[in-house]
């Protein structure tokens, strides 16, 4: 049996559903020694801004139980340097490139997507409205459905690229965020970004992260991410979803697909093992074969839930 790994993702067709998550995969090129970039479904590059950005003062990262906190503050080379220096090389290596973008204001976002313009070597634009590590922008959009809708509308009218909106999990109602983004013109959703956390250096009685709080990622958040993917899939049966949060093994990949993701992004696990994402492509094919799944898309959203019965009284 040859397994069909190809994945329809709105207007995109991905080779397979294994992509890599923004901020955990650099500009992709750094991984060329450890895996074949062309073998991945897609790679989402480090969040790009209108101008080059220095990011936040250190310390920026710390390990936590089954995960880590980060407050990088979106350090990046800027959209111009990306398009001039990174993108041609990525294209040469056969990578399917998703440009992850951010800004402090609506104008900033629009400026970045306008610079991308009709660039065909960018397969899709992923809008980060959910970075918890900046004072302006970031989560201000992601945690407020009205602000989110207004932002997505403006970006939508500024680009014809497939538009993926990356949602913040730090919300009461992820479905409300999802609906706001989709109604405003998003073609697809990415979930989840990191959860806001705090870790303390006890000897100094200071936060371990210079920005005080940071974004929690890694296996610790996987159950929350899976739940949100499932909730959004249930509410919006048609929207393409990138699922992510603590994925480390092929079983985790399949769990996200079953919960409703059309494709997944590997994040923090790239730090633990830079060859992982490439290996998962092969492992996914093997998993499907051993489970008699002919097309990986047949797995999507197949979670069998029972009607929710809660407590009964004596």
């Amino acid at each position, binding site marked *: 049996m040859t397994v069909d790994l190809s994945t329809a993702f709105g207007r995109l067709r991905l080779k397979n559903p294994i992509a890599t998550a923004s901020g955990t995969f650099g500009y992709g090129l750094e991984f060329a020694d450890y895996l074949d970039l062309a073998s991945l479904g897609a790679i989402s590059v480090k969040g790009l801004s209108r101008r080059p950005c220095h990011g936040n003062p250190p310390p920026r990262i710390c390990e936590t139980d089954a995960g880590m906190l980060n407050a990088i503050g979106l*350090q990046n080379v800027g959209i111009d340097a990306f398009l001039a220096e990174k993108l041609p090389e990525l294209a040469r290596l056969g990578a399917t490139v998703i440009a992850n973008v951010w800004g402090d204001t609506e104008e900033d976002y629009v400026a970045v997507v306008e610079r991308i313009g009709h660039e065909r070597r960018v397969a899709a634009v992923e809008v980060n409205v959910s970075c918890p590590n900046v004072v302006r922008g970031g989560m201000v959009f992601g945690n407020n459905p009205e602000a989110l809708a207004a932002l997505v509308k403006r970006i939508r009218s500024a680009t014809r690229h497939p538009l993926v909106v990356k949602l913040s999990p730090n919300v009461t109602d992820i479905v409300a965020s999802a609906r706001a983004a989709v109604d405003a013109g998003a073609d697809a959703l990415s979930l989840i970004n990191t959860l806001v956390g705090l870790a303390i250096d006890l000897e100094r009685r200071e936060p371990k992260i210079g920005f005080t709080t940071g974004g929690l990622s890694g296996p610790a958040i996987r159950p929350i991410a899976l739940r949100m993917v499932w909730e959004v899939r249930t509410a919006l049966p048609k929207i393409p979803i990138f699922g992510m949060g603590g994925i480390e093994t092929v079983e985790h990949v399949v769990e996200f697909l079953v919960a409703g993701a059309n494709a997944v992004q590997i994040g923090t696990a790239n730090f633990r093992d830079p060859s992982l994402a490439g290996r998962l492509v092969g492992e996914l094919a093997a998993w499907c074969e051993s489970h008699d799944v002919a097309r990986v898309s047949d797995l999507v959203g197949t979670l069998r839930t029972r009607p929710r019965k809660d407590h009964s009284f004596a």
Partner: protein
Amino acid sequence: MAVNESLRVLKTIHYDEGHYSLFLSAGAIGARTKPGHFAMIQAGEGLRPYLRRAFSIADVTTMAGVPALEFVIKIVGVGTAALARFAEGTPLPVLGPLGVPFPIDDLLHSDRVALVAGGIGLAPLVLLARTLAARGIAADLFYGGRNENDVLKRGDFERFLGPHRCRYATDDGSLGRKGRVTELLTHALARGGRYRRVYACGPVAMFRALATLLADANLEGSFAMESEMACGFGVCLGCVVPMTDGRFATICKEGPCVPPTAIDWARL
């Protein structure tokens, strides 16, 4: 180019004060390693530690006839504690060699250099000492620790550099001079020592003092810096330090060996 491979534990030698040498099979990393390079080691399959940990490749050597990488490690937390306990033969994922090594290619036979180590900062200087010795370049070692047990691998350094070139300082005076390692260097300079370059590794406080000292003496330096690292190869942007040009630079990719003049010590 770095390699992501699985290396076997060949041997673990425990020293006093929670220090140990960990010998791993050299794999493809050994042949590529230069003094100052480091590797990211995953301490087992569990969730604690979760991320790989960074260690200088202290030496490229042999252990019982097998090509080996030596790491000299101080136990400070879960990862360094876990690595001390693996049985011989255990395979560990290792990524390396990583980073910018010490600049040594430009050294001339007539040059004399200084090596300054504080505590566990000896680690990257072992292979450096071996390499300089092999090239016939004279090097003085200034090595400070809290006490005699904190000063490791003296035999190696004295073999590579000559015993007379190795000077020690300890906080309690149990070995060498009582006091700071920087004082050893100050004295050497006062006695007329001139160095083409000063290679150093140690705690931040030592680096700060040394940076001032070198600036005052107008000496060139190369510091092997540390920082908490998630990836080790320039993609997480977690390990940065502030630079004098206003940027934040990754210690894993633009370092670990950097000229002290590039670091903005005031913002660090």
